[in-house]
């Protein structure tokens, strides 16, 4: 799955997701990716967020909406992402998921939930001053 946030030079925010879902799913099953507020969310007055991982779990908690609301209430992007992950972990201590967050001024961050075989999350950024995409990594909570 890819979840992406774009912010133009005027601070307009857009988000998108695309996926082929979970392997061997029951026909008809849909995960979090196309669900607004779950797979991604955008509000140009605040910023955007996009999530990835086990969509059956994540879609119950609307983590992208949660992260944007966290930023609206003053959290920086990293903290907003962490709080969205922590909220899921309260109910599902070990789940596979991660989220990226960016605000309208260009600050960004990410967080993930630690699970067997998943202790770090890699994501990609392109920002001014770079000539190519920047690989970023965050340790999972």
């Amino acid at each position, binding site marked *: *799955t*890819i*979840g*992406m*946030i*774009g*912010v*133009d*030079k005027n*601070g*307009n*925010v*857009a*988000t*998108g*997701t*695309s*996926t*082929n*879902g*979970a*392997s*061997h*799913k029951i026909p*008809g099953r*849909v*995960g*979090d*990716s*196309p669900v*607004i507020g779950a*797979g991604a969310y*955008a509000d*140009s*007055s*605040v*910023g*955007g967020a996009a999530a990835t991982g086990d*969509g059956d*779990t*994540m879609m119950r908690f609307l983590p992208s909406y949660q992260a944007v609301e966290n930023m609206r209430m003053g959290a920086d992007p990293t903290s907003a992402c962490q709080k969205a992950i922590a909220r899921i972990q309260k109910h599902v*201590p070990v*789940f*596979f998921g991660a989220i*990226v967050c*960016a605000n309208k001024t*260009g*600050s960004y961050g990410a967080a993930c939930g630690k699970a*067997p*075989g*998943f202790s770090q*999350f*890699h994501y*990609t*950024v*392109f*920002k001014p001053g770079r000539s*190519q*995409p920047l*690989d970023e990594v965050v340790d999972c909570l």
Partner: protein
Amino acid sequence: QPTLPLVINTWPFRSATQAAWNVLAAGRSALDAVERGCTQCEIDQCDGSVGYGGSPDESGETTLDAMIMDGSTMKAGAVANLRRIKNAIGVARAVMEHTKHTFLVGESASLFAESMGFVCEDLTTNRSLSIYSKWLEQHCQPNFRTNVTPDPEKSCGPYKPLKELKNGKPPSLQKAVDVHSHD
């Protein structure tokens, strides 16, 4: 150093990031950028979890889900269980721009896509066929069914519901983790 524009995406899908950045660098909108970036991932079949030829379902079919959202207008479009159309994010944008709805699913979403000019083609590849064949050989493991008979942890279907839930409880929220199969 200015901090905008910015592109950020999940996973190390660099060509998608680059494609989105190129759109922003050309002075086009954030919406155009995320559509182009996600489309690139669909073309690249990013790590097998995006686009055609990946994550076959129980019947071996690949279906696609996508969503796009404009944070300035709060308009959004989404598709799920899209069959036979490769450019899922493009169809999501068409839902946003050519309907008053938000979310179309399944066969009807595919018919909508065709009517909007998207090409209809098979999403199956040798890779997805191989994944599906291997799954059948492994007695349909891993398996998302529960509280059915025959035992989904040992056998393929068809399945029927158990008369009573195991332990009298619905399935736990805690699930096995497969980091190679993600939404």
